[in-house]
Protein backbone atom coordinates (compact mmCIF):
# COMPACT_ATOMS: atom_id res chain seq x y z
CA UNK A 1 0.00 0.00 0.00
CA UNK A 2 2.73 2.38 1.02
CA UNK A 3 4.83 1.46 -1.96
CA UNK A 4 1.91 2.03 -4.30
CA UNK A 5 1.55 5.51 -2.98
CA UNK A 6 5.20 6.38 -3.56
CA UNK A 7 5.03 5.12 -7.15
CA UNK A 8 2.04 7.30 -7.74
CA UNK A 9 3.77 10.28 -6.16
CA UNK A 10 6.83 9.67 -8.30
CA UNK A 11 4.67 9.62 -11.41
CA UNK A 12 2.96 12.82 -10.39
CA UNK A 13 6.20 14.66 -9.73
CA UNK A 14 7.58 13.34 -13.04
CA UNK A 15 4.61 14.82 -14.88
CA UNK A 16 5.03 18.15 -13.10
CA UNK A 17 8.73 18.26 -13.83
CA UNK A 18 8.03 17.52 -17.50
CA UNK A 19 5.48 20.33 -17.69
CA UNK A 20 7.93 22.74 -16.07
CA UNK A 21 10.66 21.86 -18.55
CA UNK A 22 8.28 22.50 -21.44
CA UNK A 23 7.31 26.00 -20.25
CA UNK A 24 9.90 27.87 -22.34
CA UNK A 25 8.56 26.06 -25.41
CA UNK A 26 5.04 27.07 -24.38
CA UNK A 27 6.19 30.69 -24.25
CA UNK A 28 7.36 30.38 -27.84
CA UNK A 29 4.58 28.13 -29.17
CA UNK A 30 1.65 30.27 -28.08
CA UNK A 31 2.79 33.27 -30.16
CA UNK A 32 3.96 31.19 -33.13
CA UNK A 33 0.77 29.09 -33.00
CA UNK A 34 -1.15 32.35 -32.77
CA UNK A 35 0.61 33.67 -35.88
CA UNK A 36 -0.29 30.45 -37.70
CA UNK A 37 -3.92 30.75 -36.56
CA UNK A 38 -4.16 34.32 -37.85
CA UNK A 39 -2.63 33.34 -41.21
CA UNK A 40 -4.88 30.27 -41.49
CA UNK A 41 -7.97 32.39 -40.85
CA UNK A 42 -6.87 34.92 -43.45
CA UNK A 43 -6.14 32.15 -46.00
CA UNK A 44 -9.70 30.89 -45.70
CA UNK A 45 -9.00 27.69 -43.79
CA UNK A 46 -11.94 26.95 -41.48
CA UNK A 47 -11.69 26.75 -37.70
CA UNK A 48 -11.96 22.95 -37.72
CA UNK A 49 -9.23 22.49 -40.35
CA UNK A 50 -6.97 25.03 -38.65
CA UNK A 51 -7.09 23.14 -35.37
CA UNK A 52 -7.01 19.72 -37.03
CA UNK A 53 -3.74 20.72 -38.71
CA UNK A 54 -2.23 21.59 -35.33
CA UNK A 55 -3.37 18.26 -33.90
CA UNK A 56 -2.48 16.05 -36.87
CA UNK A 57 0.52 17.77 -38.42
CA UNK A 58 2.03 19.69 -35.46
CA UNK A 59 4.85 21.31 -37.43
CA UNK A 60 5.24 25.07 -37.28
CA UNK A 61 7.07 25.80 -40.50
CA UNK A 62 5.09 23.21 -42.49
CA UNK A 63 1.77 24.59 -41.23
CA UNK A 64 2.70 28.21 -41.91
CA UNK A 65 3.84 27.31 -45.41
CA UNK A 66 0.77 25.09 -45.83
CA UNK A 67 -1.65 27.86 -44.86
CA UNK A 68 0.19 30.26 -47.17
CA UNK A 69 0.00 27.83 -50.10
CA UNK A 70 -3.64 27.10 -49.36
CA UNK A 71 -4.33 30.84 -49.48
CA UNK A 72 -2.50 31.02 -52.81
CA UNK A 73 -4.67 28.13 -54.09
CA UNK A 74 -1.72 25.80 -54.72
CA UNK A 75 -2.42 22.23 -55.87
CA UNK A 76 -2.64 19.50 -53.20
CA UNK A 77 0.45 17.88 -54.71
CA UNK A 78 2.50 21.07 -54.26
CA UNK A 79 1.23 21.34 -50.70
CA UNK A 80 2.20 17.79 -49.77
CA UNK A 81 5.51 17.81 -51.61
CA UNK A 82 6.58 21.11 -50.02
CA UNK A 83 5.63 19.83 -46.58
CA UNK A 84 7.67 16.71 -47.18
CA UNK A 85 10.80 18.59 -48.24
CA UNK A 86 10.49 21.04 -45.34
CA UNK A 87 10.14 18.14 -42.90
CA UNK A 88 13.07 16.08 -44.14
CA UNK A 89 15.32 17.64 -41.49
CA UNK A 90 13.38 15.65 -38.90
CA UNK A 91 14.98 12.48 -40.31
CA UNK A 92 18.26 13.69 -38.86
CA UNK A 93 16.75 14.67 -35.52
CA UNK A 94 14.93 11.37 -35.21
CA UNK A 95 18.13 9.45 -35.96
CA UNK A 96 20.07 11.56 -33.46
CA UNK A 97 17.61 10.70 -30.68
CA UNK A 98 17.33 7.01 -31.61
CA UNK A 99 20.23 5.78 -29.42
CA UNK A 100 18.58 7.41 -26.40
CA UNK A 101 15.42 5.35 -26.88
CA UNK A 102 17.05 1.97 -26.43
CA UNK A 103 14.68 -0.46 -24.76
CA UNK A 104 11.54 1.59 -25.45
CA UNK A 105 8.52 -0.30 -26.73
CA UNK A 106 7.63 0.30 -30.36
CA UNK A 107 4.29 1.90 -29.54
CA UNK A 108 6.00 4.27 -27.14
CA UNK A 109 8.45 5.28 -29.87
CA UNK A 110 5.52 5.73 -32.27
CA UNK A 111 3.86 8.08 -29.80
CA UNK A 112 7.08 9.92 -29.01
CA UNK A 113 7.95 10.45 -32.69
CA UNK A 114 4.55 11.94 -33.37
CA UNK A 115 5.42 14.97 -31.26
CA UNK A 116 9.00 15.43 -32.42
CA UNK A 117 9.52 19.04 -33.50
CA UNK A 118 12.60 21.25 -33.80
CA UNK A 119 11.98 22.51 -30.29
CA UNK A 120 11.07 19.27 -28.52
CA UNK A 121 14.04 17.63 -30.27
CA UNK A 122 16.44 20.25 -28.94
CA UNK A 123 15.01 20.00 -25.43
CA UNK A 124 15.07 16.19 -25.38
CA UNK A 125 18.59 15.95 -26.74
CA UNK A 126 19.66 18.17 -23.84
CA UNK A 127 17.61 16.26 -21.25
CA UNK A 128 18.80 12.88 -22.50
CA UNK A 129 22.46 13.81 -22.98
CA UNK A 130 23.57 12.77 -19.50
CA UNK A 131 20.70 10.84 -17.96
CA UNK A 132 17.73 8.68 -18.87
CA UNK A 133 14.72 10.68 -17.71
CA UNK A 134 11.52 8.77 -16.87
CA UNK A 135 9.30 8.25 -19.92
CA UNK A 136 6.33 9.81 -18.21
CA UNK A 137 8.30 13.03 -17.80
CA UNK A 138 9.30 12.92 -21.48
CA UNK A 139 5.69 12.49 -22.58
CA UNK A 140 4.59 15.29 -20.24
CA UNK A 141 7.02 17.61 -22.06
CA UNK A 142 5.60 16.64 -25.46
CA UNK A 143 1.95 16.84 -24.50
CA UNK A 144 2.43 20.23 -22.83
CA UNK A 145 4.22 21.55 -25.90
CA UNK A 146 1.58 20.33 -28.36
CA UNK A 147 -1.31 21.55 -26.19
CA UNK A 148 0.13 25.05 -26.15
CA UNK A 149 0.54 24.86 -29.93
CA UNK A 150 -3.09 23.85 -30.42
CA UNK A 151 -4.32 26.53 -27.99
CA UNK A 152 -2.14 29.19 -29.65
CA UNK A 153 -3.51 28.34 -33.11
CA UNK A 154 -7.09 28.38 -31.83
CA UNK A 155 -6.71 31.81 -30.21
CA UNK A 156 -4.97 33.07 -33.36
CA UNK A 157 -7.80 31.87 -35.58
CA UNK A 158 -10.47 33.43 -33.35
CA UNK A 159 -8.55 36.72 -33.11
CA UNK A 160 -7.64 36.63 -36.81
CA UNK A 161 -10.55 38.78 -37.90
CA UNK A 162 -9.55 41.62 -35.60
CA UNK A 163 -5.81 41.54 -36.13
CA UNK A 164 -4.06 42.97 -39.14
CA UNK A 165 -0.47 42.64 -38.00
CA UNK A 166 1.24 40.61 -35.27
CA UNK A 167 4.47 42.58 -35.34
CA UNK A 168 3.89 45.36 -32.76
CA UNK A 169 4.14 42.93 -29.84
CA UNK A 170 7.29 41.17 -31.01
CA UNK A 171 5.47 37.89 -31.62
CA UNK A 172 7.32 37.33 -34.86
CA UNK A 173 10.61 37.12 -32.94
CA UNK A 174 9.35 34.16 -30.86
CA UNK A 175 10.76 31.59 -33.25
CA UNK A 176 14.27 33.06 -33.65
CA UNK A 177 14.43 33.65 -29.87
CA UNK A 178 13.44 30.05 -29.25
CA UNK A 179 16.12 28.77 -31.65
CA UNK A 180 18.76 30.92 -29.89
CA UNK A 181 17.68 29.60 -26.48
CA UNK A 182 17.90 26.03 -27.75
CA UNK A 183 21.13 26.42 -29.73
CA UNK A 184 23.36 28.00 -27.07
CA UNK A 185 23.25 25.10 -24.56
CA UNK A 186 24.09 22.62 -27.36
CA UNK A 187 27.44 24.28 -28.01
CA UNK A 188 29.48 22.41 -25.41
CA UNK A 189 32.66 21.99 -27.46
CA UNK A 190 34.58 24.54 -29.57
CA UNK A 191 34.19 22.30 -32.63
CA UNK A 192 30.39 22.46 -32.23
CA UNK A 193 30.59 26.25 -32.26
CA UNK A 194 32.69 26.20 -35.43
CA UNK A 195 30.27 23.86 -37.16
CA UNK A 196 27.22 25.81 -36.01
CA UNK A 197 28.73 28.93 -37.60
CA UNK A 198 29.55 26.98 -40.76
CA UNK A 199 26.03 25.53 -40.90
CA UNK A 200 24.51 28.99 -40.39
CA UNK A 201 26.61 30.42 -43.23
CA UNK A 202 25.76 27.56 -45.60
CA UNK A 203 22.09 27.77 -44.73
CA UNK A 204 21.97 31.50 -45.49
CA UNK A 205 23.93 31.06 -48.73
CA UNK A 206 21.61 28.29 -49.95
CA UNK A 207 18.55 30.26 -48.90
CA UNK A 208 19.66 33.35 -50.79
CA UNK A 209 20.48 31.21 -53.83
CA UNK A 210 16.87 30.04 -53.90
CA UNK A 211 17.06 26.67 -52.12
CA UNK A 212 14.59 27.99 -49.59
CA UNK A 213 13.09 24.63 -48.66
CA UNK A 214 16.08 22.31 -48.60
CA UNK A 215 18.65 24.76 -47.18
CA UNK A 216 18.35 23.48 -43.60
CA UNK A 217 18.89 19.80 -44.29
CA UNK A 218 21.73 20.39 -46.79
CA UNK A 219 23.56 22.81 -44.46
CA UNK A 220 23.12 20.45 -41.48
CA UNK A 221 24.46 17.42 -43.35
CA UNK A 222 27.40 19.31 -44.82
CA UNK A 223 28.45 20.96 -41.56
CA UNK A 224 28.10 17.72 -39.56
CA UNK A 225 30.27 15.91 -42.11
CA UNK A 226 32.94 18.61 -41.95
CA UNK A 227 32.67 18.42 -38.14
CA UNK A 228 33.50 14.71 -38.09
CA UNK A 229 36.44 15.42 -40.39
CA UNK A 230 37.75 18.22 -38.16
CA UNK A 231 37.43 16.09 -35.02
CA UNK A 232 39.30 13.19 -36.62
CA UNK A 233 42.00 15.53 -37.85
CA UNK A 234 42.40 17.07 -34.37
CA UNK A 235 42.59 13.60 -32.83
CA UNK A 236 45.25 12.47 -35.32
CA UNK A 237 47.39 15.56 -35.04
CA UNK A 238 47.35 15.50 -31.23
CA UNK A 239 48.42 11.86 -30.95
Amino acid sequence: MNQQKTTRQKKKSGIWYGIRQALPIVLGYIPVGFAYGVLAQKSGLGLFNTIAMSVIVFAGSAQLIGAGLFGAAASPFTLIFTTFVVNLRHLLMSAALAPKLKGWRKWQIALFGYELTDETFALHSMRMAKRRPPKIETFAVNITAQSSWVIGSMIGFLAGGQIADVRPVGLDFALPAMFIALLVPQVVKPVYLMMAVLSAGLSVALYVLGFNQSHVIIATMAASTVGVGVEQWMKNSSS
Partner: protein
Amino acid sequence: MGAVTYLPRLLPMFLLSDRRLSPWIAQWLSFVPATVLAALLAPGLLCREGELTLEMDNLFLLSAIPTFLVAWRFKSFFGTVATGMGIVALARYFF
Protein backbone atom coordinates in the same frame (compact mmCIF):
# COMPACT_ATOMS: atom_id res chain seq x y z
CA MET B 1 0.43 16.51 -44.82
CA GLY B 2 0.14 14.49 -41.62
CA ALA B 3 1.76 11.45 -43.18
CA VAL B 4 4.67 13.29 -44.79
CA THR B 5 5.32 14.96 -41.45
CA TYR B 6 5.06 11.85 -39.30
CA LEU B 7 7.13 9.43 -41.38
CA PRO B 8 10.43 11.36 -41.32
CA ARG B 9 9.99 11.86 -37.59
CA LEU B 10 9.23 8.25 -36.84
CA LEU B 11 11.17 5.98 -39.18
CA PRO B 12 14.78 6.65 -38.10
CA MET B 13 14.09 6.24 -34.40
CA PHE B 14 11.81 3.29 -35.05
CA LEU B 15 14.45 1.44 -37.04
CA LEU B 16 17.59 2.53 -35.19
CA SER B 17 16.60 2.59 -31.53
CA ASP B 18 17.67 -0.99 -30.79
CA ARG B 19 20.71 -1.07 -33.02
CA ARG B 20 24.26 -0.30 -32.16
CA LEU B 21 25.37 2.55 -34.42
CA SER B 22 28.88 2.65 -35.78
CA PRO B 23 31.05 5.21 -33.95
CA TRP B 24 31.31 7.28 -37.13
CA ILE B 25 27.57 7.66 -37.44
CA ALA B 26 27.15 8.34 -33.74
CA GLN B 27 29.81 11.06 -33.97
CA TRP B 28 28.14 12.54 -37.05
CA LEU B 29 24.76 12.57 -35.32
CA SER B 30 26.23 14.29 -32.26
CA PHE B 31 26.75 17.36 -34.47
CA VAL B 32 23.12 17.48 -35.56
CA PRO B 33 21.60 19.45 -32.64
CA ALA B 34 24.03 22.36 -33.01
CA THR B 35 24.17 22.39 -36.81
CA VAL B 36 20.44 21.98 -37.45
CA LEU B 37 19.47 24.74 -35.01
CA ALA B 38 22.06 27.10 -36.47
CA ALA B 39 20.77 26.35 -39.98
CA LEU B 40 17.18 26.99 -38.88
CA LEU B 41 18.03 30.22 -37.09
CA ALA B 42 20.40 32.03 -39.45
CA PRO B 43 18.14 32.87 -42.41
CA GLY B 44 15.56 34.35 -40.02
CA LEU B 45 18.14 36.78 -38.68
CA LEU B 46 20.11 37.60 -41.82
CA CYS B 47 17.57 37.53 -44.64
CA ARG B 48 14.45 39.46 -45.57
CA GLU B 49 12.29 38.33 -48.47
CA GLY B 50 14.98 36.01 -49.77
CA GLU B 51 17.78 38.55 -49.68
CA LEU B 52 20.70 39.15 -47.36
CA THR B 53 20.14 42.18 -45.09
CA LEU B 54 23.18 43.09 -43.03
CA GLU B 55 22.30 46.78 -42.59
CA MET B 56 22.24 48.42 -39.18
CA ASP B 57 18.44 48.65 -39.28
CA ASN B 58 18.02 44.87 -39.24
CA LEU B 59 16.07 44.71 -35.99
CA PHE B 60 16.15 40.91 -35.68
CA LEU B 61 19.91 40.75 -36.08
CA LEU B 62 20.46 43.51 -33.48
CA SER B 63 17.98 41.96 -31.06
CA ALA B 64 19.69 38.61 -31.44
CA ILE B 65 22.85 39.99 -29.80
CA PRO B 66 21.37 40.60 -26.31
CA THR B 67 19.28 37.43 -26.72
CA PHE B 68 22.45 35.39 -27.29
CA LEU B 69 24.10 37.07 -24.29
CA VAL B 70 21.20 36.18 -22.01
CA ALA B 71 21.16 32.58 -23.26
CA TRP B 72 24.90 32.22 -22.75
CA ARG B 73 25.27 34.08 -19.46
CA PHE B 74 22.14 33.01 -17.58
CA LYS B 75 21.42 29.66 -19.22
CA SER B 76 17.75 30.41 -18.73
CA PHE B 77 15.66 29.11 -21.57
CA PHE B 78 12.53 30.94 -20.49
CA GLY B 79 14.41 34.20 -19.83
CA THR B 80 16.01 34.05 -23.28
CA VAL B 81 12.73 33.77 -25.17
CA ALA B 82 11.11 36.47 -23.03
CA THR B 83 14.10 38.84 -23.43
CA GLY B 84 14.18 38.41 -27.19
CA MET B 85 10.49 39.11 -27.69
CA GLY B 86 10.54 41.95 -25.16
CA ILE B 87 13.45 43.72 -26.88
CA VAL B 88 11.81 43.50 -30.30
CA ALA B 89 8.52 44.84 -28.91
CA LEU B 90 10.24 47.73 -27.07
CA ALA B 91 12.39 48.65 -30.06
CA ARG B 92 9.31 48.83 -32.30
CA TYR B 93 7.52 50.91 -29.70
CA PHE B 94 10.28 53.49 -29.28
CA PHE B 95 11.77 53.74 -32.79
